[in-house]
């Protein structure tokens, strides 16, 4: 991150006039201000990803969204219209721009073989094939249609799904719908821990 905040110099009318009133030439004048960095940014209304207060936020985005452009978040601050937070944000909320575009965000699936001490980068097709295959293998191996008392239970005992309290409602719903249909009962998320 740059430490210089000066992006351009501005001549101050007041300064220049004041100086000339004293009959001295102190040009260039000294009012130097950087332009508002969100000046030409687009605004998107979103919600803070951290705790459950649900603070309204505005993400300021650079880029036109044109075919050749990757838009990026340059700043996030509180949404003053939100009746919950009225534009305010705690330190986590105030720094969420750094979370949004962190260089630490991963961009490729990684696979770790039994006993390996390192990851291996794999592509999505490999990853999802592997995932589906493992899922089916274990489901087939651990599925119980009838319990010891002969009651129909249709349960997959060998797979657990946890998370997440950080995904949108709609994804949360789809997780439940899909995993229940697969017969899983070991399903839980962060509420408990």
């Amino acid at each position, binding site marked *: 991150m740059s430490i210089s905040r000066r992006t351009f110099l501005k001549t101050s009318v007041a300064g220049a006039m004041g100086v000339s009133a004293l009959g001295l030439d102190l040009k260039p004048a000294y009012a130097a201000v950087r332009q508002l960095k969100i000046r030409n940014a687009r605004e998107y209304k979103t919600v803070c990803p951290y705790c459950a207060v649900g603070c309204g936020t505005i993400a300021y985005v650079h880029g036109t969204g044109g075919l050749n452009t990757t838009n990026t978040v340059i700043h996030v601050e509180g949404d003053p219209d939100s009746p919950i937070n009225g534009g305010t944000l705690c*330190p986590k909320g105030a720094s969420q721009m750094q979370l949004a575009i962190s260089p630490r965000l991963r961009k490729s699936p990684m696979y770790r073989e039994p006993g390996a001490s390192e990851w291996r980068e794999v592509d999505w097709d490999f990853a999802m094939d592997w995932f589906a295959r493992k899922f089916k293998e274990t489901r087939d191996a651990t599925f119980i249609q009838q319990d010891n008392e002969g009651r129909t239970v249709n349960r997959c005992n060998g797979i657990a799904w946890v998370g997440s309290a950080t995904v949108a409602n709609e994804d949360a719903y789809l997780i439940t719908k899909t995993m229940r249909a697969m017969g899983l009962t070991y399903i839980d998320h962060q509420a408990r821990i």
Partner: protein
Amino acid sequence: MSDTLSIKRISASPSALIPLESLRSGGPVYSKLVDISKCIGCKGCEVACKEWNDLKVEQTSNFGSMQSHQDLSSNTWLLMRFNEVEDGDDLHWLIKKDACLHCEEPGCLFACPAPGAIVQYQNGIVDFNQENCIGCQYCVSGCPFDIPRFDKQTKTVAKCNMCIDRVEAGLEPACVKTCPTNAIEWGIKDDMLAQAEKKVETLRKRGYDHAAVYNPGGVGGTHMMYVVPHGDRLNDYSLPAHPVASPGPLRGLNVFQRIGSYLFGAGVISALAHFLAVGPESPEDHA
């Protein structure tokens, strides 16, 4: 040119001594008001300040405190300071937002020998302009609040500029906008003063007998004021009881040196008069 950025004083120029008249009357004079009784020390302001101003992240390490940095720096213009103080059976966790107070009579600017390195605007903001800074650090010794910090890499001094880019655009400073508990407010200074008086009244009703407004007259008042619940404990908040804009070395003033000294003398005398009139006990002001 936005009226909010009319210049009042320029360092090492005659205007440092004889402030420029505002071209237009009635332009806004702003102030922050920090109500310490509402502050939870969340560091929202500290982080928002760094984020908005693109200040470099520094390597910190925990030194036995909830405080992030030991001290302000040229890349940390705002620091939450934490202090645990016992008072009989009671415990006070005193938490203070430490940053430039934007003095009406700015000791840094008075002390600065570099033309235009420090500019004070009619709206109350005191801004450092690194392009003109010569790195002499006279401003550091001129500041009664120990705020400006020298950057060894750039050889310039930096401090809070009240998010002047935001203010010019009609926005409040980043720290104000973000404060979760409404502990930092922003507005016309007179309104903020009135607000501060009301807060003191409320605090006294809640049993804070020494609640006070911090807007010290020795520097002509400040554009970041505090409401201090324990006005008798300024020391514990590391707030100087009687700050004065010190004349500083004034070496850089060249042709203006003599007249400068004269006017500074006047400033000190007026500050002293203020001090004597109000007495040493109360940090309240009198702006």
